[in-house]
């Protein structure tokens, strides 16, 4: 009895560490870079980091919600690009005041279509979003004719300057918008019934339905949010750089998936949180920044990103594997018998 108690305490601590592992990963990476990476700890570099992560952090919000619902959204990469192209391409006709909302609404609309196809047509979300991704890719090339859009008018530059204005240390308006969105999303997810519905649906769809949750509407909403935040991230980034290239969001998909998984959101759904994804994106961004500061190339960055994702997936799979092996067994009793 006396020997069993500290043991459960230890496993309790371990499971708590596991739950918050992303914060530990973040601190470890941050401290390592701060100590060893040359020129890491200066305001200019730190601002670069926050500015670089702003887009993916914004996209990560909606993607995490979709993952919490147990679904997958592969279309975010192309939604980012499309939003940038709509926002900048229509500016010369209607101005930013209309083109930016249009870009965001387009993102929401794509999310709505994804959600409807997943819930009403009952097609697997992997397939649906693979389809919309392909359609959007073609649409982007069809609309632009394969050319990037770059704005060089004074008012476009004024907006660009405003978005990259250093209002506070490490904080530009674009970073601030992202932060506010992350905080709102996290609060709603964790503190309101509306937010917890996403966890319910992801954890067990039939139970959620029996509990009176409109599961279809919740999933549709998750996809709409995913499309919306992807569009916001994309259009803000395009506005800040005054340019929308056709591969704006190409790398974001893998990046956001990795960050979400590393952050602890399970692909089976019902687990995770926006803030964890946000911290994971920061950790990855710091790591990448450090890799570049050490004078290592892009290829090391790609390799490390894959390795971290692989290790996290492997660790999780192994934990479940071990759990399943011992499930139903009572090691304390076995030990007593052996004694």
């Amino acid at each position, binding site marked *: 009895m006396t020997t069993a108690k500290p043991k459960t305490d230890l496993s309790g601590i371990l499971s708590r560490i596991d739950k918050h592992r992303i914060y530990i990963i973040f601190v470890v990476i941050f401290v390592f870079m701060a100590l060893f990476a040359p020129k890491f700890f200066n305001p200019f570099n730190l601002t670069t980091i926050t500015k670089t992560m702003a887009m993916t952090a914004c996209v990560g919000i909606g993607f995490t919600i979709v993952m919490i619902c147990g679904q997958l959204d592969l279309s975010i990469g192309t939604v980012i690009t499309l939003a940038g192209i709509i926002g900048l391409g229509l500016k010369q006709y209607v101005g930013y005041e209309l083109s930016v909302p249009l870009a965001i609404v387009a993102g929401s609309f794509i999310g709505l279509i994804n959600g409807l*196809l997943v819930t009403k047509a009952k*097609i697997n979300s992997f397939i649906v979003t693979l*389809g919309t991704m*392909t359609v959007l890719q*073609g649409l982007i090339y069809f609309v632009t004719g394969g050319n990037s859009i770059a704005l060089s008018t004074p008012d476009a530059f004024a907006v660009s300057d405003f978005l990259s204005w250093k209002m506070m240390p490490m904080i530009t308006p674009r970073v601030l918008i992202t932060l506010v969105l992350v905080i709102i999303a996290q609060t709603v997810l964790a503190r309101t019934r509306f937010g917890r519905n996403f966890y319910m649906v992801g954890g067990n769809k039939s139970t959620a339905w029996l509990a009176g949750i409109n599961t279809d509407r919740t999933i549709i909403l998750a996809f709409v949010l995913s499309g919306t935040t992807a569009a916001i991230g994309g259009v803000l980034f395009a506005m800040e750089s005054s340019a929308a290239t056709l591969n704006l969001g190409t790398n974001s998909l893998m990046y956001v998936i990795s960050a979400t998984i590393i952050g602890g959101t399970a692909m089976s759904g019902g687990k995770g949180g926006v803030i964890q994804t946000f911290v994971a994106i920061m950790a990855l961004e710091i790591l990448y920044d450090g890799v570049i500061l050490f004078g290592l190339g892009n290829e090391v960055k790609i390799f490390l990103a894959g390795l971290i994702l692989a290790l996290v*997936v492997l660790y999780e799979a192994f934990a479940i594997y071990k759990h399943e092996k011992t499930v139903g067994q009572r090691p304390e009793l076995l030990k007593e018998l052996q004694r």
Partner: protein
Amino acid sequence: MEQSRVLRFGAFASFINVFGVYLIALFFLLLGVVLQSLGVIQNFISWSNFLNIIDNVSLLGIVAVGMAFVTYSGNYADLSVPTTMALTGIVAVEMLKYGFLPAILAATAVGLLIGLINAIVVGKLKANPIIWTLAVNYVTLGVIRLVWANKQIYPETITDNKEAIALFDGIFRHELASNLFGNELLDIRLPTILMLVLMVLGQFILTKTSFGAQLKMTGSAKKAARFSGINVEYVVGMAFVLAAVTAIIGGLTITSLSRVGAYYNGTGYDFRAVTAIVIGGMTLAGGRGSMIGVLGGVLIIGFINNIMTLLGVPTLSQDMIRGLIFIIVVGISAKSLRSLGRDDS
């Protein structure tokens, strides 16, 4: 009487299940014929164009055969296929200096290693297949770019061994049928034959071997399969190894086609193969579909590509139409499965 009607309906349904995809293929064939008779496109109906269509999708077909085993086993897809293709190609080119056969053997070994890792982690440890193979894809990409430092390597600069280079070039270009039979009509390249052989082999494994039956059971109901004594870990793992095998063949072929080993060889073949497989009637839930269907799916993609190219649709915009058709076909098949009471989403 009642029973026979049910039986007949069942036979009809299973016929549609297997060959329904060919009705869609027929639709696109007719579309091409109509468009040609209207004078919108030229040269659609000709033997050489038909061979051309098959030639163009043969690479996709080869990769899809292996990937289909993964889908059939209920594990969605193997997203590590693109860099497996790239890595095997690069290794083959690098090893050409030791001759043709060592190059092929080294490439095969490297590809099989990736397949085995996938097999162990997804089969034994039951990691999420999509996420895991995505991570493997990334790691392999990183390895390629670390070791070969973003360089593309050409067989000509690696070795002076003309014979080995010629053999390697021949993987894609060898015109086996016309060489064997001396017949101009069979002017098809080796990959097409490889694709057809692999399709037949795949269909044989799926329907005539005990492994195929075990795979079907595992894909349809994993728990039931385990309780009936099937080694589920081995079966799932084997599916990933088979996916790696066809990825190796695909990687060697695409590298032979482009005559350059580079990290981007194979990009997009993961999703394209999934598209072909799913259009071909294999559901992501697993345990349903056939290799005949996958061949149909590959053919449909070939027809669509060909018609759009003849219509003059820019290559990159073709994605739009392909994606739309993909969603529509999958939507219809999901709906028809539901009306047959075989919904499993």
